[in-house]
Protein backbone atom coordinates (compact mmCIF):
# COMPACT_ATOMS: atom_id res chain seq x y z
CA UNK A 1 0.00 0.00 0.00
CA UNK A 2 2.59 2.44 1.15
CA UNK A 3 5.13 1.28 -1.39
CA UNK A 4 2.72 1.62 -4.26
CA UNK A 5 1.79 5.12 -3.18
CA UNK A 6 5.48 5.94 -3.06
CA UNK A 7 5.97 4.56 -6.53
CA UNK A 8 3.02 6.52 -7.83
CA UNK A 9 4.48 9.66 -6.32
CA UNK A 10 7.90 9.06 -7.91
CA UNK A 11 6.26 8.38 -11.23
CA UNK A 12 4.24 11.58 -11.00
CA UNK A 13 7.29 13.61 -10.15
CA UNK A 14 9.43 12.15 -12.93
CA UNK A 15 6.55 12.71 -15.35
CA UNK A 16 6.43 16.30 -14.24
CA UNK A 17 10.12 16.82 -14.73
CA UNK A 18 10.02 15.08 -18.05
CA UNK A 19 7.35 17.19 -19.65
CA UNK A 20 8.72 20.67 -19.72
CA UNK A 21 5.24 21.71 -20.73
CA UNK A 22 2.70 19.95 -18.59
CA UNK A 23 -0.05 19.48 -21.12
CA UNK A 24 -3.48 17.96 -20.73
CA UNK A 25 -3.98 14.80 -22.83
CA UNK A 26 -5.81 16.50 -25.70
CA UNK A 27 -3.10 19.08 -26.17
CA UNK A 28 -0.45 16.40 -25.84
CA UNK A 29 -2.11 14.53 -28.71
CA UNK A 30 -2.11 17.72 -30.74
CA UNK A 31 1.57 18.26 -30.03
CA UNK A 32 2.31 14.68 -31.09
CA UNK A 33 0.40 15.27 -34.31
CA UNK A 34 2.28 18.48 -35.11
CA UNK A 35 5.63 16.83 -34.42
CA UNK A 36 4.59 13.92 -36.63
CA UNK A 37 3.66 16.18 -39.55
CA UNK A 38 6.79 18.26 -39.12
CA UNK A 39 9.05 15.21 -39.10
CA UNK A 40 7.31 13.59 -42.05
CA UNK A 41 7.31 16.66 -44.27
CA UNK A 42 10.87 17.60 -43.40
CA UNK A 43 12.10 14.07 -44.07
CA UNK A 44 10.50 13.99 -47.50
CA UNK A 45 11.81 17.45 -48.37
CA UNK A 46 15.33 16.46 -47.37
CA UNK A 47 15.17 13.34 -49.51
CA UNK A 48 13.71 14.88 -52.63
CA UNK A 49 17.00 16.17 -54.09
CA UNK A 50 18.34 12.60 -54.00
CA UNK A 51 15.80 11.55 -56.58
CA UNK A 52 16.78 13.96 -59.31
CA UNK A 53 15.26 16.98 -60.93
CA UNK A 54 11.47 16.84 -61.26
CA UNK A 55 11.64 19.47 -63.99
CA UNK A 56 13.78 17.20 -66.15
CA UNK A 57 11.41 14.29 -65.64
CA UNK A 58 8.42 16.48 -66.49
CA UNK A 59 9.98 18.00 -69.56
CA UNK A 60 11.25 14.74 -70.96
CA UNK A 61 14.61 13.76 -72.37
CA UNK A 62 14.85 16.23 -75.24
CA UNK A 63 13.77 19.41 -73.45
CA UNK A 64 15.53 22.66 -74.28
CA UNK A 65 17.00 24.74 -71.44
CA UNK A 66 14.25 27.28 -72.05
CA UNK A 67 11.54 24.69 -71.54
CA UNK A 68 13.23 23.50 -68.36
CA UNK A 69 13.42 27.05 -67.04
CA UNK A 70 9.77 27.63 -67.86
CA UNK A 71 8.73 24.49 -65.98
CA UNK A 72 10.91 25.40 -63.02
CA UNK A 73 9.35 28.81 -62.86
CA UNK A 74 5.81 27.49 -63.21
CA UNK A 75 6.13 25.09 -60.29
CA UNK A 76 8.40 27.24 -58.18
CA UNK A 77 11.30 24.82 -58.60
CA UNK A 78 13.75 27.63 -59.38
CA UNK A 79 13.64 28.82 -55.79
CA UNK A 80 16.12 27.52 -53.22
CA UNK A 81 15.17 24.28 -51.48
CA UNK A 82 14.78 26.05 -48.19
CA UNK A 83 12.44 28.66 -49.64
CA UNK A 84 10.40 25.92 -51.27
CA UNK A 85 10.19 24.23 -47.90
CA UNK A 86 9.04 27.40 -46.16
CA UNK A 87 6.55 28.12 -48.90
CA UNK A 88 5.16 24.60 -48.55
CA UNK A 89 4.48 25.17 -44.86
CA UNK A 90 2.90 28.54 -45.61
CA UNK A 91 0.57 26.98 -48.14
CA UNK A 92 -0.13 24.07 -45.82
CA UNK A 93 -1.29 26.47 -43.15
CA UNK A 94 -3.94 27.57 -45.65
CA UNK A 95 -4.75 23.93 -46.39
CA UNK A 96 -3.20 24.26 -49.83
CA UNK A 97 -1.29 21.12 -50.69
CA UNK A 98 -0.08 22.33 -54.06
CA UNK A 99 -0.93 21.12 -57.53
CA UNK A 100 0.13 17.89 -59.14
CA UNK A 101 3.12 18.11 -61.46
CA UNK A 102 1.49 15.50 -63.70
CA UNK A 103 -1.99 16.84 -64.36
CA UNK A 104 -2.15 20.25 -62.66
CA UNK A 105 -5.00 19.08 -60.42
CA UNK A 106 -5.01 20.05 -56.73
CA UNK A 107 -2.84 17.40 -55.04
CA UNK A 108 -5.04 16.70 -52.04
CA UNK A 109 -8.17 16.59 -54.22
CA UNK A 110 -6.59 13.87 -56.33
CA UNK A 111 -5.63 11.90 -53.24
CA UNK A 112 -9.05 12.27 -51.66
CA UNK A 113 -10.69 10.96 -54.82
CA UNK A 114 -8.75 7.72 -54.33
CA UNK A 115 -9.49 7.50 -50.62
CA UNK A 116 -12.91 5.76 -50.84
CA UNK A 117 -11.41 2.77 -52.68
CA UNK A 118 -8.75 2.33 -50.01
CA UNK A 119 -11.30 2.70 -47.22
CA UNK A 120 -13.66 0.24 -48.90
CA UNK A 121 -10.90 -2.33 -49.13
CA UNK A 122 -9.77 -1.71 -45.55
CA UNK A 123 -13.28 -2.06 -44.15
CA UNK A 124 -13.96 -5.22 -46.13
CA UNK A 125 -10.64 -6.68 -45.05
CA UNK A 126 -11.09 -5.91 -41.37
CA UNK A 127 -14.70 -7.18 -41.34
CA UNK A 128 -13.61 -10.40 -43.04
CA UNK A 129 -10.71 -10.73 -40.62
CA UNK A 130 -12.99 -10.39 -37.60
CA UNK A 131 -15.61 -12.70 -39.11
CA UNK A 132 -12.96 -15.40 -39.59
CA UNK A 133 -10.96 -14.85 -36.42
CA UNK A 134 -13.74 -14.66 -33.88
CA UNK A 135 -15.21 -18.15 -34.33
CA UNK A 136 -11.87 -19.79 -35.15
CA UNK A 137 -10.06 -18.12 -32.27
CA UNK A 138 -12.79 -18.97 -29.79
CA UNK A 139 -12.90 -22.58 -31.00
CA UNK A 140 -9.12 -22.87 -30.68
CA UNK A 141 -8.91 -21.21 -27.30
CA UNK A 142 -11.84 -23.01 -25.72
CA UNK A 143 -9.95 -26.29 -25.55
CA UNK A 144 -6.46 -25.67 -27.01
CA UNK A 145 -5.12 -29.13 -26.14
CA UNK A 146 -7.64 -31.06 -28.30
CA UNK A 147 -5.81 -32.78 -31.21
CA UNK A 148 -7.77 -31.20 -34.08
CA UNK A 149 -7.14 -27.77 -32.60
CA UNK A 150 -3.45 -28.41 -32.13
CA UNK A 151 -3.16 -29.24 -35.83
CA UNK A 152 -5.16 -26.13 -36.74
CA UNK A 153 -2.94 -24.04 -34.51
CA UNK A 154 0.09 -25.17 -36.50
CA UNK A 155 -1.65 -24.43 -39.80
CA UNK A 156 -2.48 -20.95 -38.54
CA UNK A 157 1.10 -20.51 -37.38
CA UNK A 158 2.39 -21.23 -40.88
CA UNK A 159 -0.24 -18.97 -42.44
CA UNK A 160 0.97 -16.18 -40.19
CA UNK A 161 4.29 -16.41 -42.03
CA UNK A 162 2.79 -15.80 -45.46
CA UNK A 163 3.01 -12.10 -46.40
CA UNK A 164 -0.14 -10.59 -47.90
CA UNK A 165 1.37 -10.02 -51.34
CA UNK A 166 2.59 -13.61 -51.55
CA UNK A 167 -0.89 -14.76 -50.56
CA UNK A 168 -2.34 -12.47 -53.22
CA UNK A 169 -0.25 -14.12 -55.94
CA UNK A 170 -1.24 -17.58 -54.71
CA UNK A 171 -4.92 -16.59 -54.71
CA UNK A 172 -4.61 -15.20 -58.24
CA UNK A 173 -2.89 -18.39 -59.33
CA UNK A 174 -5.65 -20.58 -57.88
CA UNK A 175 -8.86 -18.61 -58.44
CA UNK A 176 -8.07 -16.49 -61.49
CA UNK A 177 -5.55 -18.52 -63.50
CA UNK A 178 -6.30 -22.18 -62.73
CA UNK A 179 -10.00 -22.21 -61.83
CA UNK A 180 -10.92 -19.03 -63.73
CA UNK A 181 -13.62 -18.28 -61.16
CA UNK A 182 -12.69 -14.72 -60.31
CA UNK A 183 -11.07 -11.81 -62.15
CA UNK A 184 -7.42 -11.19 -61.31
CA UNK A 185 -7.50 -7.40 -61.47
CA UNK A 186 -9.99 -4.56 -61.45
CA UNK A 187 -12.37 -2.73 -59.18
CA UNK A 188 -15.65 -2.20 -60.99
CA UNK A 189 -17.70 -5.21 -59.92
CA UNK A 190 -18.14 -6.96 -56.56
CA UNK A 191 -16.42 -10.11 -57.82
CA UNK A 192 -13.30 -7.98 -58.20
CA UNK A 193 -13.44 -7.29 -54.49
CA UNK A 194 -13.13 -10.85 -53.27
CA UNK A 195 -9.47 -11.63 -53.94
CA UNK A 196 -7.93 -8.37 -52.60
CA UNK A 197 -10.08 -8.64 -49.48
CA UNK A 198 -9.07 -12.25 -48.94
CA UNK A 199 -5.40 -11.47 -49.54
CA UNK A 200 -5.41 -8.82 -46.83
CA UNK A 201 -7.58 -10.82 -44.44
CA UNK A 202 -5.41 -13.90 -44.83
CA UNK A 203 -2.46 -11.88 -43.61
CA UNK A 204 -4.29 -10.28 -40.68
CA UNK A 205 -6.54 -13.12 -39.53
CA UNK A 206 -3.88 -15.58 -38.24
CA UNK A 207 -2.57 -12.91 -35.90
CA UNK A 208 -6.01 -12.07 -34.55
CA UNK A 209 -6.96 -15.74 -34.27
CA UNK A 210 -3.92 -16.38 -32.11
CA UNK A 211 -4.59 -13.41 -29.85
CA UNK A 212 -8.27 -14.33 -29.39
CA UNK A 213 -7.39 -17.98 -28.78
CA UNK A 214 -4.76 -17.05 -26.19
CA UNK A 215 -7.18 -14.67 -24.48
CA UNK A 216 -10.03 -17.17 -24.43
CA UNK A 217 -7.88 -19.98 -23.07
CA UNK A 218 -6.44 -17.65 -20.45
CA UNK A 219 -9.88 -16.45 -19.45
CA UNK A 220 -11.08 -20.06 -19.15
CA UNK A 221 -8.46 -20.58 -16.45
CA UNK A 222 -9.43 -17.50 -14.45
CA UNK A 223 -10.89 -17.82 -10.98
CA UNK A 224 -14.23 -16.30 -11.88
CA UNK A 225 -14.69 -18.87 -14.64
CA UNK A 226 -13.82 -21.65 -12.23
CA UNK A 227 -16.35 -20.22 -9.77
CA UNK A 228 -19.02 -20.00 -12.46
CA UNK A 229 -18.27 -23.64 -13.37
CA UNK A 230 -18.59 -24.65 -9.74
CA UNK A 231 -21.99 -22.98 -9.61
CA UNK A 232 -23.06 -25.17 -12.50
CA UNK A 233 -22.89 -22.74 -15.44
CA UNK A 234 -22.90 -24.53 -18.78
CA UNK A 235 -19.76 -24.28 -20.98
CA UNK A 236 -21.63 -22.18 -23.54
CA UNK A 237 -22.79 -19.81 -20.87
CA UNK A 238 -19.29 -19.49 -19.46
CA UNK A 239 -17.94 -18.79 -22.90
CA UNK A 240 -20.50 -16.13 -23.75
CA UNK A 241 -20.82 -14.41 -20.43
CA UNK A 242 -17.31 -14.61 -19.06
CA UNK A 243 -14.56 -15.68 -21.40
CA UNK A 244 -15.51 -13.93 -24.65
CA UNK A 245 -16.02 -10.39 -23.34
CA UNK A 246 -12.56 -10.44 -21.84
CA UNK A 247 -11.02 -12.01 -24.91
CA UNK A 248 -12.58 -9.37 -27.15
CA UNK A 249 -11.40 -6.56 -24.97
CA UNK A 250 -7.85 -7.79 -25.43
CA UNK A 251 -8.39 -8.05 -29.15
CA UNK A 252 -9.64 -4.46 -29.53
CA UNK A 253 -6.16 -3.01 -29.49
CA UNK A 254 -4.97 -5.42 -32.16
CA UNK A 255 -8.00 -4.76 -34.38
CA UNK A 256 -7.30 -1.03 -34.12
CA UNK A 257 -3.64 -1.56 -35.01
CA UNK A 258 -4.60 -3.77 -37.92
CA UNK A 259 -7.05 -1.22 -39.28
CA UNK A 260 -4.42 1.48 -39.00
CA UNK A 261 -1.97 -0.83 -40.76
CA UNK A 262 -4.43 -1.30 -43.62
CA UNK A 263 -4.30 2.42 -44.43
CA UNK A 264 -0.72 2.08 -45.60
CA UNK A 265 -0.25 -1.69 -45.73
CA UNK A 266 -2.60 -2.21 -48.63
CA UNK A 267 -0.23 -0.43 -51.04
CA UNK A 268 1.11 -3.67 -52.47
CA UNK A 269 -2.25 -5.40 -52.62
CA UNK A 270 -3.69 -2.36 -54.38
CA UNK A 271 -0.96 -2.34 -56.96
CA UNK A 272 -1.19 -6.11 -57.54
CA UNK A 273 -4.94 -5.98 -58.15
CA UNK A 274 -4.92 -2.58 -59.91
CA UNK A 275 -7.19 -1.34 -57.14
CA UNK A 276 -7.51 2.45 -57.64
CA UNK A 277 -6.82 3.41 -54.02
CA UNK A 278 -4.23 5.65 -52.45
CA UNK A 279 -1.50 3.00 -52.51
CA UNK A 280 -1.96 2.44 -56.19
CA UNK A 281 -1.87 6.21 -56.75
CA UNK A 282 1.36 6.41 -54.76
CA UNK A 283 3.04 3.74 -56.87
CA UNK A 284 1.88 5.52 -60.03
CA UNK A 285 3.02 8.98 -59.02
CA UNK A 286 6.30 7.93 -57.46
CA UNK A 287 7.68 7.08 -60.87
CA UNK A 288 6.98 10.59 -62.15
CA UNK A 289 8.20 12.20 -58.89
CA UNK A 290 4.89 13.99 -58.51
CA UNK A 291 6.07 15.43 -55.22
CA UNK A 292 2.95 17.38 -54.17
CA UNK A 293 0.78 14.29 -54.57
CA UNK A 294 3.30 12.02 -52.79
CA UNK A 295 3.50 14.52 -49.95
CA UNK A 296 -0.30 14.77 -49.77
CA UNK A 297 -0.56 10.97 -49.63
CA UNK A 298 1.96 10.71 -46.80
CA UNK A 299 0.20 13.46 -44.84
CA UNK A 300 -3.29 12.05 -45.35
CA UNK A 301 -2.28 8.51 -44.37
CA UNK A 302 -0.40 9.80 -41.34
CA UNK A 303 -3.52 11.73 -40.30
CA UNK A 304 -5.73 8.67 -40.80
CA UNK A 305 -3.39 6.39 -38.85
CA UNK A 306 -3.16 8.97 -36.10
CA UNK A 307 -6.94 9.30 -35.92
CA UNK A 308 -7.45 5.52 -35.84
CA UNK A 309 -4.85 5.06 -33.10
CA UNK A 310 -6.42 7.82 -31.04
CA UNK A 311 -9.87 6.29 -31.44
CA UNK A 312 -8.52 2.85 -30.52
CA UNK A 313 -6.97 4.23 -27.34
CA UNK A 314 -10.19 6.02 -26.55
CA UNK A 315 -12.42 3.01 -27.09
CA UNK A 316 -10.03 0.92 -25.06
CA UNK A 317 -10.47 3.27 -22.14
CA UNK A 318 -14.23 3.35 -22.58
CA UNK A 319 -14.56 -0.43 -22.84
CA UNK A 320 -12.32 -1.45 -19.99
CA UNK A 321 -13.68 -0.45 -16.59
CA UNK A 322 -10.27 -1.10 -15.06
CA UNK A 323 -8.72 1.71 -17.09
CA UNK A 324 -11.55 4.19 -16.70
CA UNK A 325 -10.46 5.73 -13.46
CA UNK A 326 -6.81 4.84 -13.95
CA UNK A 327 -4.08 7.38 -14.43
CA UNK A 328 -3.40 8.58 -17.95
CA UNK A 329 -1.01 6.44 -19.91
CA UNK A 330 1.68 8.61 -21.44
Amino acid sequence: MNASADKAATRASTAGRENWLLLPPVLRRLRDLLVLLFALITLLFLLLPLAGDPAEILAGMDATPDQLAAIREKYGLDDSRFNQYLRYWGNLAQLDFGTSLVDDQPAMGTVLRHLPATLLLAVMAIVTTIAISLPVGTWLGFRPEAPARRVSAWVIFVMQGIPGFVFALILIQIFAVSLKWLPAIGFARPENWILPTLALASFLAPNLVRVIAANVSEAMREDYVRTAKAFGASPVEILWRHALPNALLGATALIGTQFAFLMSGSVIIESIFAWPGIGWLLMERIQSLDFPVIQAIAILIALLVFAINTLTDLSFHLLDPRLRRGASHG
Partner: protein
Amino acid sequence: MADQAMPRASRIAALRSRISTELVVGILMGGLLAALLLLRPWLSDHDPMGTDLLNRYQPPGTPGHWLGTDQLGRDLWARALAGLEWSMTTAIMATAISLMIGTLLGLLAAQREGVVRTLVRQSIDTILSFPGLIVAICVVALWGQGYWPIVLTLGLLSWPVFARVCFAEALSLLQREYVQSAALAGMSRFQILIQHVLPGLRPVLMVMLAFHFASMLISESALSFLGLGAPLGEPTWGNMLAASRAELFEAPWMMLVPAAGIVIAVVTANLIGDGIAALSRRQGKGIDV
Protein backbone atom coordinates in the same frame (compact mmCIF):
# COMPACT_ATOMS: atom_id res chain seq x y z
CA MET B 1 -0.25 -44.79 -8.62
CA ALA B 2 0.18 -41.17 -7.77
CA ASP B 3 3.58 -41.97 -6.31
CA GLN B 4 4.79 -43.39 -9.58
CA ALA B 5 3.21 -40.74 -11.74
CA MET B 6 4.54 -37.79 -9.84
CA PRO B 7 8.26 -38.02 -10.52
CA ARG B 8 7.65 -38.82 -14.15
CA ALA B 9 5.27 -35.91 -14.52
CA SER B 10 7.67 -33.59 -12.80
CA ARG B 11 10.52 -34.83 -14.98
CA ILE B 12 8.43 -34.08 -18.05
CA ALA B 13 7.58 -30.71 -16.60
CA ALA B 14 11.26 -30.02 -15.98
CA LEU B 15 12.06 -31.02 -19.53
CA ARG B 16 9.20 -28.93 -20.90
CA SER B 17 10.55 -25.91 -19.11
CA ARG B 18 13.77 -26.22 -21.06
CA ILE B 19 12.54 -27.34 -24.49
CA SER B 20 9.73 -26.14 -26.67
CA THR B 21 8.63 -27.82 -29.89
CA GLU B 22 8.56 -24.51 -31.71
CA LEU B 23 12.10 -23.70 -30.71
CA VAL B 24 13.44 -27.12 -31.71
CA VAL B 25 11.75 -27.04 -35.12
CA GLY B 26 12.75 -23.41 -35.57
CA ILE B 27 16.39 -24.04 -34.78
CA LEU B 28 16.49 -27.05 -37.09
CA MET B 29 15.00 -25.03 -39.94
CA GLY B 30 17.28 -22.11 -39.16
CA GLY B 31 20.27 -24.44 -39.21
CA LEU B 32 19.17 -25.77 -42.58
CA LEU B 33 18.87 -22.25 -44.00
CA ALA B 34 22.29 -21.34 -42.59
CA ALA B 35 23.77 -24.49 -44.13
CA LEU B 36 22.25 -23.63 -47.52
CA LEU B 37 23.72 -20.17 -47.21
CA LEU B 38 27.21 -21.39 -46.33
CA LEU B 39 27.30 -24.26 -48.81
CA ARG B 40 25.81 -22.24 -51.64
CA PRO B 41 28.89 -22.43 -53.91
CA TRP B 42 28.72 -26.24 -53.86
CA LEU B 43 24.96 -26.62 -54.07
CA SER B 44 24.39 -25.34 -57.56
CA ASP B 45 26.71 -25.02 -60.51
CA HIS B 46 24.30 -22.81 -62.43
CA ASP B 47 24.86 -19.09 -62.67
CA PRO B 48 21.80 -17.37 -61.16
CA MET B 49 22.06 -14.73 -63.88
CA GLY B 50 22.97 -17.13 -66.70
CA THR B 51 20.25 -17.12 -69.35
CA ASP B 52 19.63 -20.18 -71.50
CA LEU B 53 17.00 -19.40 -74.12
CA LEU B 54 16.78 -23.02 -75.26
CA ASN B 55 15.60 -24.09 -71.81
CA ARG B 56 12.97 -21.51 -70.92
CA TYR B 57 9.94 -22.39 -68.75
CA GLN B 58 11.26 -25.80 -67.70
CA PRO B 59 8.96 -27.15 -64.96
CA PRO B 60 10.37 -28.38 -61.65
CA GLY B 61 11.80 -31.88 -61.89
CA THR B 62 13.58 -31.26 -65.17
CA PRO B 63 16.98 -33.01 -65.17
CA GLY B 64 19.63 -30.44 -64.35
CA HIS B 65 17.05 -27.92 -63.11
CA TRP B 66 15.23 -29.57 -60.23
CA LEU B 67 13.21 -26.45 -59.45
CA GLY B 68 12.78 -25.56 -63.11
CA THR B 69 13.75 -22.45 -65.04
CA ASP B 70 12.24 -19.01 -65.60
CA GLN B 71 11.23 -17.04 -68.70
CA LEU B 72 14.89 -16.54 -69.65
CA GLY B 73 15.95 -20.12 -68.89
CA ARG B 74 17.72 -19.19 -65.65
CA ASP B 75 17.94 -21.95 -63.07
CA LEU B 76 15.46 -21.28 -60.27
CA TRP B 77 17.37 -23.26 -57.61
CA ALA B 78 20.46 -21.12 -58.20
CA ARG B 79 18.31 -17.99 -58.13
CA ALA B 80 16.48 -19.09 -54.99
CA LEU B 81 19.83 -19.61 -53.24
CA ALA B 82 21.07 -16.21 -54.38
CA GLY B 83 17.78 -14.74 -53.13
CA LEU B 84 18.29 -16.46 -49.80
CA GLU B 85 21.65 -14.76 -49.42
CA TRP B 86 20.24 -11.34 -50.35
CA SER B 87 17.21 -11.68 -48.05
CA MET B 88 19.23 -12.98 -45.11
CA THR B 89 21.95 -10.37 -45.34
CA THR B 90 19.59 -7.42 -45.81
CA ALA B 91 17.23 -8.58 -43.04
CA ILE B 92 20.08 -9.33 -40.61
CA MET B 93 21.79 -6.02 -41.31
CA ALA B 94 18.56 -4.01 -41.00
CA THR B 95 17.72 -5.83 -37.77
CA ALA B 96 21.20 -5.18 -36.39
CA ILE B 97 21.00 -1.45 -37.15
CA SER B 98 17.56 -1.30 -35.62
CA LEU B 99 18.69 -3.22 -32.53
CA MET B 100 21.77 -1.12 -31.93
CA ILE B 101 20.12 2.27 -32.28
CA GLY B 102 17.00 1.15 -30.44
CA THR B 103 18.82 -0.38 -27.47
CA LEU B 104 21.22 2.54 -27.12
CA LEU B 105 18.56 5.20 -27.22
CA GLY B 106 16.16 3.18 -25.08
CA LEU B 107 18.79 2.75 -22.35
CA LEU B 108 19.83 6.37 -22.63
CA ALA B 109 16.26 7.54 -22.18
CA ALA B 110 15.73 5.20 -19.25
CA GLN B 111 18.79 6.49 -17.49
CA ARG B 112 18.65 10.18 -18.14
CA GLU B 113 15.64 12.16 -17.21
CA GLY B 114 14.83 15.54 -18.62
CA VAL B 115 15.42 16.74 -22.14
CA VAL B 116 17.18 13.59 -23.38
CA ARG B 117 14.33 11.36 -22.31
CA THR B 118 11.69 13.69 -23.72
CA LEU B 119 13.49 13.88 -27.05
CA VAL B 120 13.98 10.14 -27.35
CA ARG B 121 10.41 9.35 -26.34
CA GLN B 122 9.04 11.93 -28.74
CA SER B 123 11.09 10.48 -31.60
CA ILE B 124 9.92 6.99 -30.71
CA ASP B 125 6.28 8.06 -30.75
CA THR B 126 6.73 10.07 -33.91
CA ILE B 127 8.47 7.42 -35.97
CA LEU B 128 6.13 4.72 -34.70
CA SER B 129 3.18 6.72 -35.94
CA PHE B 130 4.69 7.15 -39.40
CA PRO B 131 2.71 5.19 -41.96
CA GLY B 132 5.67 2.81 -42.18
CA LEU B 133 5.36 1.22 -45.57
CA ILE B 134 4.46 4.49 -47.31
CA VAL B 135 7.42 6.30 -45.82
CA ALA B 136 9.70 3.38 -46.67
CA ILE B 137 8.42 3.38 -50.25
CA CYS B 138 8.98 7.13 -50.55
CA VAL B 139 12.44 7.02 -49.01
CA VAL B 140 13.67 4.09 -51.09
CA ALA B 141 12.07 5.47 -54.24
CA LEU B 142 13.73 8.85 -53.74
CA TRP B 143 17.04 7.46 -52.54
CA GLY B 144 17.46 4.82 -55.18
CA GLN B 145 17.80 1.06 -55.32
CA GLY B 146 20.55 -0.98 -53.76
CA TYR B 147 21.74 -2.78 -50.69
CA TRP B 148 22.55 0.17 -48.43
CA PRO B 149 19.52 2.33 -49.23
CA ILE B 150 17.18 -0.51 -48.36
CA VAL B 151 19.08 -1.69 -45.28
CA LEU B 152 19.42 1.80 -43.86
CA THR B 153 15.85 2.77 -44.65
CA LEU B 154 14.44 -0.31 -42.93
CA GLY B 155 16.83 -0.05 -39.98
CA LEU B 156 16.45 3.68 -39.42
CA LEU B 157 12.66 3.54 -39.63
CA SER B 158 12.21 0.58 -37.29
CA TRP B 159 14.54 1.19 -34.32
CA PRO B 160 11.75 2.68 -32.17
CA VAL B 161 10.31 -0.84 -31.84
CA PHE B 162 13.39 -1.81 -29.83
CA ALA B 163 13.81 1.55 -28.14
CA ARG B 164 10.30 1.55 -26.73
CA VAL B 165 10.61 -1.88 -25.17
CA CYS B 166 14.17 -1.29 -23.91
CA PHE B 167 13.11 1.99 -22.36
CA ALA B 168 10.13 0.52 -20.53
CA GLU B 169 11.98 -2.59 -19.36
CA ALA B 170 15.10 -0.73 -18.32
CA LEU B 171 13.08 1.85 -16.46
CA SER B 172 11.37 -0.83 -14.40
CA LEU B 173 14.67 -2.65 -13.82
CA LEU B 174 16.32 0.56 -12.64
CA GLN B 175 13.67 0.90 -9.97
CA ARG B 176 14.28 -2.55 -8.51
CA GLU B 177 15.77 -2.52 -5.06
CA TYR B 178 18.91 -4.47 -5.93
CA VAL B 179 19.74 -2.03 -8.69
CA GLN B 180 19.15 0.95 -6.48
CA SER B 181 21.28 -0.53 -3.74
CA ALA B 182 24.02 -1.16 -6.29
CA ALA B 183 23.85 2.53 -7.14
CA LEU B 184 24.05 3.41 -3.46
CA ALA B 185 27.04 1.11 -3.10
CA GLY B 186 28.83 3.30 -5.59
CA MET B 187 28.45 1.39 -8.83
CA SER B 188 28.66 3.72 -11.82
CA ARG B 189 25.70 4.22 -14.12
CA PHE B 190 27.51 2.47 -16.92
CA GLN B 191 28.37 -0.55 -14.73
CA ILE B 192 24.76 -0.81 -13.61
CA LEU B 193 23.59 -0.80 -17.20
CA ILE B 194 26.04 -3.50 -18.21
CA GLN B 195 25.73 -5.71 -15.14
CA HIS B 196 22.11 -5.37 -14.11
CA VAL B 197 20.01 -3.90 -16.87
CA LEU B 198 21.32 -5.53 -20.06
CA PRO B 199 21.05 -9.12 -18.74
CA GLY B 200 17.48 -8.38 -17.72
CA LEU B 201 16.70 -7.20 -21.24
CA ARG B 202 18.12 -10.28 -22.93
CA PRO B 203 14.99 -12.50 -23.03
CA VAL B 204 12.77 -9.75 -24.43
CA LEU B 205 15.39 -8.72 -26.95
CA MET B 206 15.88 -12.28 -28.18
CA VAL B 207 12.17 -12.71 -28.85
CA MET B 208 11.98 -9.31 -30.52
CA LEU B 209 15.04 -9.99 -32.66
CA ALA B 210 13.42 -13.07 -34.19
CA PHE B 211 10.15 -11.31 -34.99
CA HIS B 212 11.91 -8.19 -36.18
CA PHE B 213 14.06 -10.22 -38.53
CA ALA B 214 10.87 -11.72 -40.01
CA SER B 215 9.29 -8.33 -40.50
CA MET B 216 12.45 -6.89 -42.07
CA LEU B 217 12.57 -9.83 -44.46
CA ILE B 218 8.94 -9.29 -45.44
CA SER B 219 9.45 -5.53 -45.87
CA GLU B 220 12.54 -6.05 -47.99
CA SER B 221 10.86 -8.52 -50.31
CA ALA B 222 7.80 -6.28 -50.50
CA LEU B 223 9.90 -3.30 -51.55
CA SER B 224 11.81 -5.42 -54.07
CA PHE B 225 8.52 -6.80 -55.34
CA LEU B 226 7.37 -3.23 -55.99
CA GLY B 227 10.58 -2.66 -57.93
CA LEU B 228 12.02 -0.29 -55.34
CA GLY B 229 14.41 -2.34 -53.24
CA ALA B 230 16.89 -4.63 -54.89
CA PRO B 231 18.43 -3.48 -58.16
CA LEU B 232 16.33 -4.70 -61.09
CA GLY B 233 17.45 -8.05 -62.39
CA GLU B 234 19.25 -8.94 -59.18
CA PRO B 235 18.20 -12.45 -58.14
CA THR B 236 16.18 -11.70 -55.01
CA TRP B 237 12.93 -13.27 -53.87
CA GLY B 238 11.03 -10.00 -54.25
CA ASN B 239 12.33 -9.47 -57.79
CA MET B 240 11.61 -13.09 -58.70
CA LEU B 241 8.03 -12.72 -57.47
CA ALA B 242 7.63 -9.51 -59.44
CA ALA B 243 8.87 -11.25 -62.60
CA SER B 244 6.57 -14.21 -62.00
CA ARG B 245 3.45 -12.03 -62.14
CA ALA B 246 3.54 -11.89 -65.91
CA GLU B 247 4.10 -15.64 -66.20
CA LEU B 248 1.41 -17.03 -63.90
CA PHE B 249 -0.28 -18.78 -66.85
CA GLU B 250 2.94 -20.06 -68.34
CA ALA B 251 5.00 -21.03 -65.32
CA PRO B 252 3.33 -20.95 -61.89
CA TRP B 253 6.45 -22.47 -60.32
CA MET B 254 8.27 -19.18 -60.99
CA MET B 255 5.98 -17.71 -58.33
CA LEU B 256 5.99 -20.71 -56.01
CA VAL B 257 9.77 -20.99 -55.61
CA PRO B 258 10.44 -17.48 -54.20
CA ALA B 259 7.11 -17.57 -52.32
CA ALA B 260 8.21 -20.75 -50.58
CA GLY B 261 11.57 -19.17 -49.78
CA ILE B 262 9.96 -16.16 -48.10
CA VAL B 263 7.44 -18.28 -46.19
CA ILE B 264 10.07 -20.75 -44.96
CA ALA B 265 12.37 -17.97 -43.76
CA VAL B 266 9.57 -16.07 -42.03
CA VAL B 267 8.08 -19.18 -40.41
CA THR B 268 11.53 -20.16 -39.15
CA ALA B 269 12.01 -16.80 -37.49
CA ASN B 270 8.49 -16.88 -36.04
CA LEU B 271 9.10 -20.36 -34.64
CA ILE B 272 12.28 -19.27 -32.92
CA GLY B 273 10.66 -16.13 -31.53
CA ASP B 274 7.58 -17.96 -30.32
CA GLY B 275 9.70 -20.77 -28.88
CA ILE B 276 11.86 -18.43 -26.82
CA ALA B 277 8.77 -16.53 -25.66
CA ALA B 278 7.04 -19.76 -24.62
CA LEU B 279 10.11 -20.94 -22.76
CA SER B 280 10.61 -17.77 -20.78
CA ARG B 281 6.90 -17.67 -19.98
CA ARG B 282 7.06 -21.23 -18.71
CA GLN B 283 10.18 -20.63 -16.68
CA GLY B 284 8.77 -17.45 -15.22
CA LYS B 285 5.50 -19.09 -14.30
CA GLY B 286 7.18 -22.09 -12.73
CA ILE B 287 4.90 -24.75 -11.28
CA ASP B 288 1.69 -22.95 -12.08
CA VAL B 289 0.98 -24.93 -15.30
